[in-house]
Protein backbone atom coordinates (compact mmCIF):
# COMPACT_ATOMS: atom_id res chain seq x y z
CA UNK A 1 0.00 0.00 0.00
CA UNK A 2 2.94 2.33 0.47
CA UNK A 3 4.83 1.72 -2.76
CA UNK A 4 2.58 3.81 -5.00
CA UNK A 5 4.47 7.06 -4.78
CA UNK A 6 7.79 5.86 -6.20
CA UNK A 7 6.76 2.61 -7.94
CA UNK A 8 7.10 2.63 -11.73
CA UNK A 9 3.84 2.49 -13.61
CA UNK A 10 4.61 -1.03 -14.84
CA UNK A 11 4.15 -2.63 -11.42
CA UNK A 12 1.18 -0.58 -10.33
CA UNK A 13 -0.45 -1.33 -13.66
CA UNK A 14 -2.80 1.00 -15.49
CA UNK A 15 -5.76 -1.41 -15.18
CA UNK A 16 -5.77 -1.71 -11.40
CA UNK A 17 -4.59 1.54 -9.86
CA UNK A 18 -4.28 0.75 -6.19
CA UNK A 19 -5.87 3.47 -4.07
CA UNK A 20 -3.65 4.92 -1.40
CA UNK A 21 -4.90 5.20 2.15
CA UNK A 22 -5.08 8.91 1.61
CA UNK A 23 -7.44 8.57 -1.34
CA UNK A 24 -9.57 6.05 0.54
CA UNK A 25 -9.94 8.45 3.41
CA UNK A 26 -10.91 11.19 1.00
CA UNK A 27 -13.78 9.10 -0.36
CA UNK A 28 -15.15 8.55 3.14
CA UNK A 29 -14.87 12.24 3.90
CA UNK A 30 -16.61 12.92 0.57
CA UNK A 31 -19.55 10.85 1.78
CA UNK A 32 -19.80 13.06 4.84
CA UNK A 33 -19.96 16.15 2.64
CA UNK A 34 -23.06 14.87 0.84
CA UNK A 35 -26.28 16.27 2.36
CA UNK A 36 -27.34 12.90 3.80
CA UNK A 37 -23.90 12.14 5.15
CA UNK A 38 -23.55 15.60 6.68
CA UNK A 39 -26.93 15.39 8.43
CA UNK A 40 -26.20 11.82 9.53
CA UNK A 41 -22.79 12.54 11.03
CA UNK A 42 -24.04 15.73 12.72
CA UNK A 43 -26.95 13.88 14.33
CA UNK A 44 -24.71 11.04 15.44
CA UNK A 45 -22.09 13.48 16.72
CA UNK A 46 -24.63 15.38 18.82
CA UNK A 47 -26.06 12.14 20.25
CA UNK A 48 -22.63 10.71 21.08
CA UNK A 49 -21.50 14.01 22.62
CA UNK A 50 -24.66 14.18 24.75
CA UNK A 51 -24.19 10.58 25.89
CA UNK A 52 -20.53 11.14 26.75
CA UNK A 53 -21.04 14.47 28.50
CA UNK A 54 -24.22 13.73 30.46
CA UNK A 55 -22.41 12.88 33.75
CA UNK A 56 -20.97 16.43 33.75
CA UNK A 57 -24.34 18.15 34.08
CA UNK A 58 -26.39 15.64 36.05
CA UNK A 59 -26.09 13.85 39.36
CA UNK A 60 -26.45 10.33 37.98
CA UNK A 61 -29.34 8.52 36.33
CA UNK A 62 -30.97 7.35 39.58
CA UNK A 63 -31.27 10.70 41.36
CA UNK A 64 -34.80 10.43 42.79
CA UNK A 65 -37.19 13.15 43.92
CA UNK A 66 -40.77 13.45 45.21
CA UNK A 67 -41.75 15.06 41.92
CA UNK A 68 -43.12 11.93 40.18
CA UNK A 69 -44.66 11.83 36.68
CA UNK A 70 -44.05 15.54 36.16
CA UNK A 71 -44.91 16.93 32.75
CA UNK A 72 -42.31 18.64 30.55
CA UNK A 73 -40.72 21.73 32.11
CA UNK A 74 -37.45 23.66 31.78
CA UNK A 75 -35.94 21.63 34.62
CA UNK A 76 -37.15 18.32 33.16
CA UNK A 77 -37.67 18.71 29.37
CA UNK A 78 -39.15 15.21 29.03
CA UNK A 79 -40.74 15.02 32.47
CA UNK A 80 -39.96 12.69 35.35
CA UNK A 81 -40.69 9.01 35.90
CA UNK A 82 -42.38 6.95 38.62
CA UNK A 83 -39.55 7.69 41.09
CA UNK A 84 -39.21 11.34 40.15
CA UNK A 85 -36.08 10.73 38.08
CA UNK A 86 -35.40 13.01 35.14
CA UNK A 87 -36.32 11.12 31.95
CA UNK A 88 -34.03 13.16 29.68
CA UNK A 89 -31.03 12.29 31.87
CA UNK A 90 -32.04 8.63 32.08
CA UNK A 91 -32.48 8.53 28.30
CA UNK A 92 -28.96 9.84 27.75
CA UNK A 93 -27.54 7.29 30.23
CA UNK A 94 -29.54 4.65 28.37
CA UNK A 95 -28.02 5.90 25.13
CA UNK A 96 -24.54 5.48 26.68
CA UNK A 97 -25.22 1.84 27.46
CA UNK A 98 -26.78 1.27 24.04
CA UNK A 99 -23.93 2.88 22.12
CA UNK A 100 -21.35 0.73 23.91
CA UNK A 101 -23.38 -2.48 23.65
CA UNK A 102 -24.40 -1.98 20.01
CA UNK A 103 -20.97 -0.93 18.72
CA UNK A 104 -19.27 -3.75 20.62
CA UNK A 105 -21.76 -6.25 19.19
CA UNK A 106 -21.53 -4.96 15.63
CA UNK A 107 -17.72 -4.71 15.69
CA UNK A 108 -17.47 -8.27 17.03
CA UNK A 109 -19.77 -9.44 14.26
CA UNK A 110 -17.68 -7.52 11.73
CA UNK A 111 -14.38 -9.06 12.80
CA UNK A 112 -15.83 -12.55 13.23
CA UNK A 113 -17.75 -12.30 9.94
CA UNK A 114 -14.65 -11.14 8.06
CA UNK A 115 -12.60 -13.98 9.53
CA UNK A 116 -15.28 -16.55 8.66
CA UNK A 117 -15.59 -15.01 5.20
CA UNK A 118 -11.81 -15.21 4.72
CA UNK A 119 -11.73 -18.84 5.85
CA UNK A 120 -14.61 -19.46 3.48
CA UNK A 121 -12.67 -17.89 0.63
CA UNK A 122 -9.60 -20.03 1.35
CA UNK A 123 -11.42 -23.33 1.75
CA UNK A 124 -14.27 -24.15 -0.63
CA UNK A 125 -15.84 -26.73 1.68
CA UNK A 126 -15.82 -24.47 4.74
CA UNK A 127 -17.04 -21.61 2.57
CA UNK A 128 -20.10 -23.57 1.50
CA UNK A 129 -20.66 -24.69 5.07
CA UNK A 130 -20.61 -21.11 6.42
CA UNK A 131 -22.92 -19.99 3.62
CA UNK A 132 -25.48 -22.57 4.76
CA UNK A 133 -25.08 -21.50 8.39
CA UNK A 134 -25.73 -17.90 7.30
CA UNK A 135 -28.83 -19.11 5.38
CA UNK A 136 -30.14 -20.66 8.58
CA UNK A 137 -29.54 -17.53 10.67
CA UNK A 138 -31.21 -15.35 8.05
CA UNK A 139 -34.20 -17.70 7.94
CA UNK A 140 -35.05 -16.53 11.46
CA UNK A 141 -36.94 -13.29 12.01
CA UNK A 142 -34.54 -11.31 14.22
CA UNK A 143 -36.80 -11.10 17.28
CA UNK A 144 -37.57 -14.84 17.22
CA UNK A 145 -33.83 -15.51 17.23
CA UNK A 146 -33.45 -13.09 20.13
CA UNK A 147 -36.17 -14.88 22.08
CA UNK A 148 -34.56 -18.28 21.58
CA UNK A 149 -31.26 -16.87 22.88
CA UNK A 150 -33.07 -15.19 25.79
CA UNK A 151 -34.67 -18.52 26.67
CA UNK A 152 -31.32 -20.29 26.68
CA UNK A 153 -29.13 -17.84 28.60
CA UNK A 154 -31.87 -15.97 30.44
CA UNK A 155 -33.20 -12.48 29.55
CA UNK A 156 -30.64 -9.70 29.90
CA UNK A 157 -27.56 -7.99 28.54
CA UNK A 158 -25.78 -11.24 27.65
CA UNK A 159 -28.70 -12.57 25.61
CA UNK A 160 -28.85 -9.27 23.79
CA UNK A 161 -25.14 -9.17 22.94
CA UNK A 162 -25.19 -12.76 21.67
CA UNK A 163 -28.28 -12.10 19.53
CA UNK A 164 -26.74 -8.98 18.00
CA UNK A 165 -23.52 -10.79 17.07
CA UNK A 166 -25.33 -13.82 15.64
CA UNK A 167 -27.81 -11.79 13.67
CA UNK A 168 -25.27 -9.33 12.24
CA UNK A 169 -22.80 -12.08 11.33
CA UNK A 170 -24.23 -13.30 7.97
CA UNK A 171 -24.14 -9.85 6.35
CA UNK A 172 -20.45 -9.37 7.10
CA UNK A 173 -19.54 -12.98 6.35
CA UNK A 174 -21.15 -12.93 2.91
CA UNK A 175 -19.67 -9.55 1.96
CA UNK A 176 -16.18 -10.62 3.03
CA UNK A 177 -16.28 -13.92 1.15
CA UNK A 178 -17.78 -12.43 -2.01
CA UNK A 179 -15.30 -9.56 -1.95
CA UNK A 180 -12.29 -11.79 -1.41
CA UNK A 181 -13.33 -14.26 -4.13
CA UNK A 182 -13.89 -11.46 -6.65
CA UNK A 183 -10.33 -10.23 -6.18
CA UNK A 184 -8.70 -13.65 -6.44
CA UNK A 185 -7.91 -13.48 -10.16
CA UNK A 186 -6.80 -9.85 -10.29
CA UNK A 187 -3.30 -9.11 -11.57
CA UNK A 188 -1.91 -7.72 -8.33
CA UNK A 189 -2.93 -10.90 -6.52
CA UNK A 190 -1.30 -13.09 -9.17
CA UNK A 191 1.79 -10.90 -8.96
CA UNK A 192 1.97 -11.28 -5.20
CA UNK A 193 1.46 -15.02 -5.52
CA UNK A 194 4.21 -15.34 -8.13
CA UNK A 195 6.55 -13.60 -5.74
CA UNK A 196 6.01 -16.52 -3.40
CA UNK A 197 4.13 -14.68 -0.69
CA UNK A 198 2.10 -17.15 1.42
CA UNK A 199 -1.60 -17.35 0.60
CA UNK A 200 -2.90 -16.05 3.94
CA UNK A 201 -0.48 -13.12 3.74
CA UNK A 202 -1.65 -12.20 0.24
CA UNK A 203 -5.16 -12.36 1.62
CA UNK A 204 -4.57 -10.17 4.64
CA UNK A 205 -2.05 -7.67 3.26
CA UNK A 206 -3.13 -7.33 -0.36
CA UNK A 207 -6.70 -8.48 -0.94
CA UNK A 208 -8.37 -7.46 2.32
CA UNK A 209 -7.58 -3.72 2.01
CA UNK A 210 -9.29 -3.80 -1.40
CA UNK A 211 -12.44 -5.51 -0.13
CA UNK A 212 -12.87 -3.74 3.18
CA UNK A 213 -15.04 -0.88 1.86
CA UNK A 214 -18.35 -2.78 1.55
CA UNK A 215 -17.72 -4.29 4.98
CA UNK A 216 -17.17 -0.90 6.61
CA UNK A 217 -20.20 0.57 4.85
CA UNK A 218 -22.31 -2.37 6.05
CA UNK A 219 -21.60 -1.54 9.72
CA UNK A 220 -24.01 1.42 9.46
CA UNK A 221 -26.94 -0.83 8.47
CA UNK A 222 -25.85 -3.45 11.01
CA UNK A 223 -26.11 -0.77 13.70
CA UNK A 224 -29.72 -0.08 12.68
CA UNK A 225 -30.50 -3.80 12.86
CA UNK A 226 -28.87 -3.98 16.30
CA UNK A 227 -30.86 -0.98 17.54
CA UNK A 228 -34.09 -2.68 16.46
CA UNK A 229 -33.05 -5.87 18.24
CA UNK A 230 -32.09 -4.16 21.50
CA UNK A 231 -35.19 -2.01 21.75
CA UNK A 232 -37.54 -4.75 20.53
CA UNK A 233 -36.29 -7.32 23.03
CA UNK A 234 -35.99 -4.84 25.91
CA UNK A 235 -39.44 -3.39 25.37
CA UNK A 236 -41.08 -6.77 26.00
CA UNK A 237 -38.78 -7.29 28.99
CA UNK A 238 -36.38 -9.82 27.47
CA UNK A 239 -33.40 -7.53 26.97
CA UNK A 240 -31.92 -4.95 29.32
CA UNK A 241 -33.90 -5.00 32.56
CA UNK A 242 -35.22 -1.94 34.39
CA UNK A 243 -34.01 -0.11 36.48
CA UNK A 244 -30.90 -0.33 34.26
CA UNK A 245 -31.58 2.39 31.67
CA UNK A 246 -31.42 1.67 27.96
CA UNK A 247 -33.57 3.07 25.18
CA UNK A 248 -35.50 -0.22 25.12
CA UNK A 249 -35.88 -0.65 28.88
CA UNK A 250 -37.03 2.97 29.30
CA UNK A 251 -39.66 2.40 26.62
CA UNK A 252 -40.64 -0.75 28.48
CA UNK A 253 -41.32 1.32 31.62
CA UNK A 254 -42.96 4.03 29.53
CA UNK A 255 -45.43 1.56 28.04
CA UNK A 256 -46.48 0.45 31.53
CA UNK A 257 -47.36 4.04 32.47
CA UNK A 258 -48.66 5.04 29.04
CA UNK A 259 -52.15 6.13 30.15
CA UNK A 260 -50.85 7.74 33.35
CA UNK A 261 -47.92 9.67 31.83
CA UNK A 262 -48.02 9.68 28.01
CA UNK A 263 -44.94 11.94 27.87
CA UNK A 264 -42.78 9.18 29.45
CA UNK A 265 -42.09 7.40 26.13
CA UNK A 266 -41.34 10.57 24.13
CA UNK A 267 -37.72 11.13 25.23
CA UNK A 268 -36.43 7.61 24.55
CA UNK A 269 -38.61 7.41 21.41
CA UNK A 270 -37.15 10.56 19.88
CA UNK A 271 -33.56 9.57 20.69
CA UNK A 272 -34.17 6.10 19.25
CA UNK A 273 -35.56 7.48 15.98
CA UNK A 274 -32.72 10.02 15.65
CA UNK A 275 -30.09 7.35 16.33
CA UNK A 276 -31.51 4.94 13.75
CA UNK A 277 -32.00 7.83 11.30
CA UNK A 278 -28.39 8.99 11.65
CA UNK A 279 -27.06 5.52 10.83
CA UNK A 280 -29.49 5.09 7.90
CA UNK A 281 -28.44 8.44 6.43
CA UNK A 282 -24.75 7.60 6.87
CA UNK A 283 -25.33 4.25 5.23
CA UNK A 284 -27.02 5.88 2.22
CA UNK A 285 -24.25 8.45 1.82
CA UNK A 286 -21.46 5.87 2.16
CA UNK A 287 -23.20 3.57 -0.31
CA UNK A 288 -23.35 6.32 -2.90
CA UNK A 289 -19.91 7.82 -2.38
CA UNK A 290 -17.72 4.87 -1.43
CA UNK A 291 -19.30 1.88 -3.18
CA UNK A 292 -20.68 3.33 -6.41
CA UNK A 293 -17.22 4.31 -7.67
Amino acid at each position, binding site marked *: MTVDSQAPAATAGPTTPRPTRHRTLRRYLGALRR*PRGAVGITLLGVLVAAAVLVPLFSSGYDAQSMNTFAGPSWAHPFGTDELGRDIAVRTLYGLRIDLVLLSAGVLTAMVLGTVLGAIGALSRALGLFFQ*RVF*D*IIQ*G*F*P*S*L*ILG*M*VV*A*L*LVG*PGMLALSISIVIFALPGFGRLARAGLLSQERREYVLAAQTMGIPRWRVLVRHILPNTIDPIIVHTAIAM*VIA*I*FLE*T*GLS*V*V*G*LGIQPPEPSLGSL*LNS*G*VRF*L*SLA*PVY*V*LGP*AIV*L*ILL*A*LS*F*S*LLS*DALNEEVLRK
Partner: protein
Amino acid sequence: MARYLLRRVPSALLVLFATSVLAFVLPRLAPGDPAVTIAGPDATAAEVAAIRADLGLDRPMVTQYLHWLGDALHGNFGTSYLTDRPVTQLLLDRAGSTVQLAILAALLMVVLGLGLGIIAGSVRRRSARSALDLFSTTLLGTPPFLSGLLLVLLLGIAVPLLPVSGEVSLFADPVIGIQYLLLPALALALTQSAAIARLVRSAMDQARGEDYVQTAIAKGASDTRVTLRHVLRNSLSSALVTFGIRFGELLGGAIVVEAIFARNGLGTLAVTSVNQRDYAVLQAITLLAVAIAVITQLLTEIGLAALDPRIKLESAR
Protein backbone atom coordinates in the same frame (compact mmCIF):
# COMPACT_ATOMS: atom_id res chain seq x y z
CA MET B 1 -37.69 -22.68 -13.79
CA ALA B 2 -36.93 -26.24 -12.74
CA ARG B 3 -33.25 -25.37 -12.35
CA TYR B 4 -34.15 -22.33 -10.32
CA LEU B 5 -36.25 -24.48 -7.99
CA LEU B 6 -33.47 -27.03 -7.73
CA ARG B 7 -31.17 -24.30 -6.50
CA ARG B 8 -33.55 -22.65 -4.05
CA VAL B 9 -35.52 -25.54 -2.52
CA PRO B 10 -32.61 -27.42 -0.89
CA SER B 11 -31.52 -24.25 0.89
CA ALA B 12 -35.05 -23.68 2.22
CA LEU B 13 -35.31 -27.32 3.32
CA LEU B 14 -31.97 -27.02 5.06
CA VAL B 15 -33.15 -23.97 7.01
CA LEU B 16 -36.32 -25.84 8.02
CA PHE B 17 -34.34 -28.91 9.06
CA ALA B 18 -31.86 -26.87 11.10
CA THR B 19 -34.71 -25.00 12.78
CA SER B 20 -36.44 -28.25 13.67
CA VAL B 21 -33.21 -29.61 15.18
CA LEU B 22 -32.74 -26.38 17.13
CA ALA B 23 -36.35 -26.42 18.33
CA PHE B 24 -35.94 -30.07 19.34
CA VAL B 25 -32.69 -29.46 21.20
CA LEU B 26 -33.97 -26.31 22.93
CA PRO B 27 -35.66 -27.93 25.96
CA ARG B 28 -32.76 -30.35 26.29
CA LEU B 29 -30.28 -27.49 26.69
CA ALA B 30 -32.21 -26.27 29.70
CA PRO B 31 -30.64 -26.72 33.10
CA GLY B 32 -32.13 -29.55 35.12
CA ASP B 33 -33.67 -32.90 34.23
CA PRO B 34 -37.34 -32.63 33.19
CA ALA B 35 -38.08 -36.12 34.58
CA VAL B 36 -36.81 -35.06 38.03
CA THR B 37 -38.82 -31.82 37.84
CA ILE B 38 -42.04 -33.62 36.94
CA ALA B 39 -41.52 -36.37 39.53
CA GLY B 40 -41.22 -33.82 42.32
CA PRO B 41 -38.81 -33.63 45.26
CA ASP B 42 -39.97 -36.80 47.07
CA ALA B 43 -39.76 -39.19 44.11
CA THR B 44 -37.65 -42.33 44.29
CA ALA B 45 -35.08 -43.20 41.65
CA ALA B 46 -37.44 -45.85 40.26
CA GLU B 47 -40.24 -43.31 39.83
CA VAL B 48 -37.92 -40.89 38.03
CA ALA B 49 -36.78 -43.73 35.76
CA ALA B 50 -40.40 -44.62 35.03
CA ILE B 51 -41.23 -41.03 34.07
CA ARG B 52 -38.09 -40.85 31.96
CA ALA B 53 -39.14 -43.99 30.09
CA ASP B 54 -42.66 -42.61 29.79
CA LEU B 55 -41.35 -39.39 28.20
CA GLY B 56 -39.03 -41.40 25.95
CA LEU B 57 -35.97 -39.63 27.39
CA ASP B 58 -34.09 -42.94 27.77
CA ARG B 59 -33.98 -43.55 24.03
CA PRO B 60 -31.19 -42.38 21.69
CA MET B 61 -31.35 -38.71 20.60
CA VAL B 62 -31.98 -39.50 16.93
CA THR B 63 -34.96 -41.73 17.80
CA GLN B 64 -36.29 -39.04 20.10
CA TYR B 65 -35.88 -36.42 17.35
CA LEU B 66 -37.66 -38.50 14.70
CA HIS B 67 -40.43 -39.30 17.13
CA TRP B 68 -40.80 -35.64 18.06
CA LEU B 69 -40.72 -34.53 14.40
CA GLY B 70 -43.39 -37.08 13.49
CA ASP B 71 -45.59 -35.78 16.28
CA ALA B 72 -44.95 -32.16 15.29
CA LEU B 73 -45.87 -32.87 11.64
CA HIS B 74 -49.14 -34.32 12.91
CA GLY B 75 -49.77 -31.14 14.86
CA ASN B 76 -48.83 -32.53 18.24
CA PHE B 77 -46.31 -30.32 20.03
CA GLY B 78 -46.50 -31.94 23.45
CA THR B 79 -47.71 -30.43 26.70
CA SER B 80 -46.96 -27.02 28.16
CA TYR B 81 -44.95 -27.41 31.38
CA LEU B 82 -46.61 -24.34 32.76
CA THR B 83 -50.31 -24.86 32.12
CA ASP B 84 -50.29 -28.63 31.60
CA ARG B 85 -52.41 -28.16 28.47
CA PRO B 86 -51.56 -29.41 24.96
CA VAL B 87 -49.34 -26.82 23.23
CA THR B 88 -51.36 -27.16 20.02
CA GLN B 89 -54.48 -26.13 21.92
CA LEU B 90 -52.70 -23.09 23.38
CA LEU B 91 -51.47 -22.08 19.93
CA LEU B 92 -54.87 -22.51 18.30
CA ASP B 93 -56.51 -20.37 20.98
CA ARG B 94 -54.15 -17.51 20.14
CA ALA B 95 -53.56 -18.04 16.41
CA GLY B 96 -56.72 -16.24 15.23
CA SER B 97 -55.63 -12.92 16.71
CA THR B 98 -52.14 -13.07 15.18
CA VAL B 99 -53.36 -14.30 11.79
CA GLN B 100 -55.82 -11.40 11.50
CA LEU B 101 -53.08 -8.97 12.49
CA ALA B 102 -50.50 -10.42 10.10
CA ILE B 103 -52.85 -10.52 7.10
CA LEU B 104 -54.05 -6.94 7.50
CA ALA B 105 -50.48 -5.77 8.18
CA ALA B 106 -49.17 -7.56 5.07
CA LEU B 107 -51.89 -5.96 2.94
CA LEU B 108 -51.12 -2.51 4.36
CA MET B 109 -47.41 -3.13 3.87
CA VAL B 110 -47.84 -3.84 0.15
CA VAL B 111 -50.36 -1.06 -0.49
CA LEU B 112 -48.45 1.60 1.46
CA GLY B 113 -45.08 0.43 0.19
CA LEU B 114 -46.11 0.50 -3.46
CA GLY B 115 -48.07 3.74 -3.01
CA LEU B 116 -45.25 5.61 -1.32
CA GLY B 117 -42.67 4.16 -3.72
CA ILE B 118 -44.65 5.09 -6.83
CA ILE B 119 -45.24 8.63 -5.59
CA ALA B 120 -41.56 9.04 -4.70
CA GLY B 121 -40.55 7.61 -8.07
CA SER B 122 -42.93 9.86 -10.02
CA VAL B 123 -42.59 13.33 -8.54
CA ARG B 124 -40.14 15.64 -10.28
CA ARG B 125 -39.81 18.54 -7.83
CA ARG B 126 -36.46 18.25 -6.07
CA SER B 127 -37.77 19.47 -2.74
CA ALA B 128 -40.69 17.01 -2.82
CA ARG B 129 -38.32 14.19 -3.65
CA SER B 130 -35.99 15.00 -0.76
CA ALA B 131 -38.92 15.33 1.64
CA LEU B 132 -40.30 11.93 0.60
CA ASP B 133 -36.83 10.41 0.84
CA LEU B 134 -36.36 11.71 4.35
CA PHE B 135 -39.83 10.48 5.29
CA SER B 136 -39.19 6.92 4.13
CA THR B 137 -35.70 6.87 5.69
CA THR B 138 -37.21 7.97 9.01
CA LEU B 139 -39.93 5.31 8.75
CA LEU B 140 -37.29 2.71 7.99
CA GLY B 141 -35.48 3.69 11.18
CA THR B 142 -38.60 3.44 13.33
CA PRO B 143 -39.15 -0.06 14.73
CA PRO B 144 -42.77 -1.31 14.49
CA PHE B 145 -43.42 -1.13 18.23
CA LEU B 146 -42.34 2.51 18.24
CA SER B 147 -44.65 3.42 15.35
CA GLY B 148 -47.26 1.62 17.45
CA LEU B 149 -46.48 3.71 20.52
CA LEU B 150 -46.58 6.95 18.57
CA LEU B 151 -49.87 5.94 16.92
CA VAL B 152 -51.27 5.19 20.38
CA LEU B 153 -50.17 8.60 21.63
CA LEU B 154 -51.58 10.35 18.58
CA LEU B 155 -54.82 8.51 17.77
CA GLY B 156 -55.54 6.88 21.10
CA ILE B 157 -54.66 9.50 23.69
CA ALA B 158 -54.22 12.93 22.06
CA VAL B 159 -57.16 12.52 19.64
CA PRO B 160 -59.02 9.44 20.93
CA LEU B 161 -60.28 8.01 17.64
CA LEU B 162 -59.43 4.32 17.89
CA PRO B 163 -59.15 1.85 20.77
CA VAL B 164 -55.53 1.19 21.69
CA SER B 165 -55.65 -1.76 24.03
CA GLY B 166 -57.23 -5.18 23.78
CA GLU B 167 -59.03 -6.77 20.86
CA VAL B 168 -62.28 -8.00 19.40
CA SER B 169 -62.20 -10.78 16.82
CA LEU B 170 -63.19 -9.80 13.28
CA PHE B 171 -65.49 -12.79 13.20
CA ALA B 172 -67.29 -11.81 16.40
CA ASP B 173 -67.96 -8.23 15.28
CA PRO B 174 -66.33 -7.02 12.05
CA VAL B 175 -67.02 -3.29 12.61
CA ILE B 176 -65.57 -3.14 16.12
CA GLY B 177 -62.93 -5.74 15.30
CA ILE B 178 -61.37 -3.71 12.50
CA GLN B 179 -61.10 -0.68 14.82
CA TYR B 180 -59.05 -2.69 17.28
CA LEU B 181 -56.98 -4.18 14.47
CA LEU B 182 -56.19 -1.04 12.50
CA LEU B 183 -53.55 0.62 14.69
CA PRO B 184 -51.46 -2.48 15.46
CA ALA B 185 -51.57 -3.56 11.81
CA LEU B 186 -50.53 -0.10 10.65
CA ALA B 187 -47.70 -0.03 13.20
CA LEU B 188 -46.48 -3.38 11.98
CA ALA B 189 -46.71 -2.42 8.31
CA LEU B 190 -45.07 1.03 8.34
CA THR B 191 -41.40 0.06 8.79
CA GLN B 192 -41.55 -2.72 6.24
CA SER B 193 -43.51 -0.63 3.74
CA ALA B 194 -40.74 1.99 3.83
CA ALA B 195 -38.27 -0.69 2.77
CA ILE B 196 -40.50 -1.67 -0.14
CA ALA B 197 -41.06 1.99 -1.06
CA ARG B 198 -37.33 2.67 -1.27
CA LEU B 199 -36.81 -0.31 -3.56
CA VAL B 200 -39.68 0.68 -5.84
CA ARG B 201 -38.33 4.21 -6.04
CA SER B 202 -34.78 3.24 -6.92
CA ALA B 203 -36.02 0.63 -9.42
CA MET B 204 -38.18 3.31 -11.06
CA ASP B 205 -35.26 5.73 -11.19
CA GLN B 206 -33.18 3.08 -12.85
CA ALA B 207 -35.93 2.15 -15.33
CA ARG B 208 -36.32 5.81 -16.38
CA GLY B 209 -32.81 5.76 -17.75
CA GLU B 210 -33.46 2.71 -19.93
CA ASP B 211 -33.62 2.99 -23.72
CA TYR B 212 -37.17 1.67 -23.98
CA VAL B 213 -38.41 4.49 -21.76
CA GLN B 214 -36.58 7.06 -23.88
CA THR B 215 -38.19 5.46 -26.95
CA ALA B 216 -41.64 5.68 -25.41
CA ILE B 217 -41.10 9.35 -24.53
CA ALA B 218 -39.79 10.03 -28.04
CA LYS B 219 -42.90 8.42 -29.50
CA GLY B 220 -44.93 10.99 -27.62
CA ALA B 221 -46.51 8.74 -24.98
CA SER B 222 -48.06 10.70 -22.15
CA ASP B 223 -46.32 11.03 -18.80
CA THR B 224 -48.86 8.81 -17.04
CA ARG B 225 -48.61 6.16 -19.71
CA VAL B 226 -44.82 6.09 -19.60
CA THR B 227 -44.86 5.83 -15.83
CA LEU B 228 -47.53 3.15 -15.60
CA ARG B 229 -46.85 1.04 -18.67
CA HIS B 230 -43.10 1.22 -19.04
CA VAL B 231 -41.38 2.38 -15.85
CA LEU B 232 -43.57 0.82 -13.20
CA ARG B 233 -44.12 -2.54 -14.83
CA ASN B 234 -40.43 -3.12 -15.09
CA SER B 235 -39.77 -1.98 -11.52
CA LEU B 236 -42.23 -4.15 -9.65
CA SER B 237 -40.46 -7.50 -9.63
CA SER B 238 -37.34 -6.29 -7.85
CA ALA B 239 -39.51 -4.70 -5.18
CA LEU B 240 -41.85 -7.63 -4.67
CA VAL B 241 -39.00 -10.08 -4.26
CA THR B 242 -38.41 -8.50 -0.87
CA PHE B 243 -42.00 -9.20 0.15
CA GLY B 244 -41.00 -12.65 1.36
CA ILE B 245 -38.15 -11.36 3.52
CA ARG B 246 -40.25 -8.50 4.83
CA PHE B 247 -43.10 -10.82 5.75
CA GLY B 248 -40.80 -12.85 8.01
CA GLU B 249 -39.64 -9.70 9.81
CA LEU B 250 -43.26 -8.61 10.06
CA LEU B 251 -44.05 -11.82 11.94
CA GLY B 252 -41.16 -11.16 14.33
CA GLY B 253 -42.36 -7.59 14.83
CA ALA B 254 -45.82 -8.90 15.74
CA ILE B 255 -44.37 -10.20 19.03
CA VAL B 256 -43.60 -6.70 20.26
CA VAL B 257 -46.56 -4.96 18.67
CA GLU B 258 -48.97 -7.38 20.37
CA ALA B 259 -47.35 -6.55 23.69
CA ILE B 260 -47.78 -2.80 23.10
CA PHE B 261 -51.45 -3.12 22.15
CA ALA B 262 -52.20 -5.76 24.82
CA ARG B 263 -53.39 -8.24 22.20
CA ASN B 264 -53.66 -11.83 23.26
CA GLY B 265 -51.85 -13.39 20.30
CA LEU B 266 -49.00 -15.78 19.66
CA GLY B 267 -46.41 -13.04 20.29
CA THR B 268 -47.68 -12.41 23.80
CA LEU B 269 -47.71 -16.16 24.36
CA ALA B 270 -44.10 -16.34 23.16
CA VAL B 271 -42.96 -13.60 25.55
CA THR B 272 -44.71 -15.29 28.48
CA SER B 273 -43.20 -18.63 27.61
CA VAL B 274 -39.66 -17.16 27.54
CA ASN B 275 -40.19 -15.48 30.91
CA GLN B 276 -41.66 -18.64 32.44
CA ARG B 277 -39.15 -20.91 30.67
CA ASP B 278 -41.99 -22.84 29.04
CA TYR B 279 -39.79 -24.56 26.46
CA ALA B 280 -42.48 -26.64 24.76
CA VAL B 281 -44.45 -23.54 23.76
CA LEU B 282 -41.51 -21.51 22.46
CA GLN B 283 -40.28 -24.58 20.59
CA ALA B 284 -43.55 -24.75 18.65
CA ILE B 285 -43.75 -20.99 18.03
CA THR B 286 -40.16 -20.85 16.74
CA LEU B 287 -40.76 -23.74 14.39
CA LEU B 288 -43.99 -22.23 13.08
CA ALA B 289 -42.59 -18.71 12.64
CA VAL B 290 -39.50 -19.85 10.75
CA ALA B 291 -41.49 -22.30 8.63
CA ILE B 292 -43.97 -19.59 7.62
CA ALA B 293 -41.18 -17.09 6.95
CA VAL B 294 -39.13 -19.53 4.84
CA ILE B 295 -42.10 -20.83 2.88
CA THR B 296 -43.42 -17.33 2.12
CA GLN B 297 -40.00 -16.31 0.90
CA LEU B 298 -39.71 -19.39 -1.31
CA LEU B 299 -43.21 -18.92 -2.74
CA THR B 300 -42.54 -15.24 -3.58
CA GLU B 301 -39.35 -16.18 -5.36
CA ILE B 302 -41.03 -19.00 -7.27
CA GLY B 303 -43.91 -16.71 -8.18
CA LEU B 304 -41.53 -14.08 -9.50
CA ALA B 305 -39.45 -16.61 -11.39
CA ALA B 306 -42.65 -17.71 -13.09
CA LEU B 307 -43.56 -14.13 -13.99
CA ASP B 308 -40.18 -12.73 -14.93
CA PRO B 309 -38.39 -14.42 -17.82
CA ARG B 310 -35.08 -12.76 -16.92
CA ILE B 311 -34.75 -14.79 -13.72
CA LYS B 312 -34.98 -18.00 -15.72
CA LEU B 313 -32.22 -16.86 -18.02
CA GLU B 314 -29.99 -15.90 -15.14
CA SER B 315 -30.34 -19.25 -13.42
CA ALA B 316 -29.70 -21.15 -16.65
CA ARG B 317 -26.36 -19.45 -17.16
